[in-house]
């Protein structure tokens, strides 16, 4: 549970009266929601490290690709898929 997984920001929505930025992040094609509250400067197209639904750091594309490949090798991405029971939308 402690790992952070790199993904690419696909789109950003504003929630809670515009106070909270939530992104759709693609992890090698698996799309999950992540809060951008910790990264006010992150934008669509950026690569971010996401830890339990919160983006904690920006990374460059090469780093993201390398880390993602490694996590896939050690089976961490399977866990992400396994725990994806939601693709639901929080109400805006």
């Amino acid at each position, binding site marked *: *549970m*402690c*790992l*952070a997984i790199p993904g690419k920001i696909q789109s950003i929505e504003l929630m*809670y009266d515009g*106070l*909270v930025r939530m992104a759709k992040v693609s992890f090698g094609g698996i799309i*999950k*929601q992540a*809060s951008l*509250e*910790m*990264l*006010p400067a992150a934008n669509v197209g950026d690569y971010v*490290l996401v*830890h*339990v*639904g*919160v983006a*904690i*750091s920006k*990374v*460059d594309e090469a*780093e993201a690709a*390398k*880390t993602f*490949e*490694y996590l896939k*090798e*050690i089976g961490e991405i399977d*866990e*992400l898929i*396994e*725990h*994806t*029971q*939601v693709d*639901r939308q*929080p*109400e805006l």
Partner: protein
Amino acid sequence: MKYLSEYRDAGTVGQYLDEINKVVTRPWTIMEICGGQTHSLVKNGLIGLLPGNVRMVHGPGCPVCVTPLNLIDKAVYLAEEKKVILCSYGDMLRVPGSKKSLLEAKAAGADVRILYSPLEAVLLAKENPGKEVVFFAVGFETTAPANALSVLHAQRQGLKNYSILTSHVLVPPAIEAIVGDDSNVVQGFLAAGHVCTIMGLGEYYPIVEKYHLPIVVTGFEPVDLLHGILMLLKQLERGEYKVENQYTRVVNEWGNPEARAVIDKVFRVTHREWRGIGEIPFSGYELKNAFAGYDANLKFNVQIEKAEESKECIAGQVLRGLKKPFECPQFVKKCKPSNPLGAPMVSSEGACAAYYHFSNMGVMA
């Protein structure tokens, strides 16, 4: 080298190993704090590749492992008796309490759910206004912002049926508890990169000054770990004790200020009981008074009798680096991941479980 030859960076790994061999002239004992790093070191067979006089020992950095038995029993009680929707990360739900794990409670009919994020638990609370939703919020500094945010999200929406059962632990006090003890054998630390992504490096300077031992912030991939070990060994051989950052591509000096602000808003530092080690002063977070309504401990005020830990388990010595998992008489015998006797065997990121799963890689030799 079988496993490493499958790894893309086998060449780089070899270079680091060569350099390590050149640098080392004396025996050294190094501890990695983070369970993810333990897992990576053992799984990739790196320990067996290091020179014989570099002894890697494995710290208490698996939050699932060090969550007290008593809290797991409490969570099971909330799910079964208070009929709450109890949710957490998958590895936490698998850990046996004194009677059963949360997943066993689920099999017996309790509403227990594996979630990827605490923010999903807030959505669950919104969708189930007639039910109480409790998120079992474990983790180190890396996870604290997410758990804190879940409370803020619930508050913004005026949800009264969401609360968290916190078991938050902090890295620097754990390092101090290990090196400050008379029995300490650790001479240098690898600190967890992702923890520092949030907290930055600031907390480690006073520790290296006080105890005169080096700390290198490191990533968790095989090449990161070997690079971190090399940096640490160079300092040790030269008699230096500095904070160095191997993981500069992700970690900066100051960490993530937004994340720290959210932690400061929601949590305060408190004493924490670490399974296998005991209480460490000022080593965890609990909710501030302003958020008392979101504290499952206060909301449900469940008093559970403290369960006895196994007398045969030497987790305290393993987590302090005094013994290796295979030096425990119960390792693989009475104690296995399917029947863990203690903290380091309960999750795959615990040291004993890592050795159990990958002991066929020669790390026991």
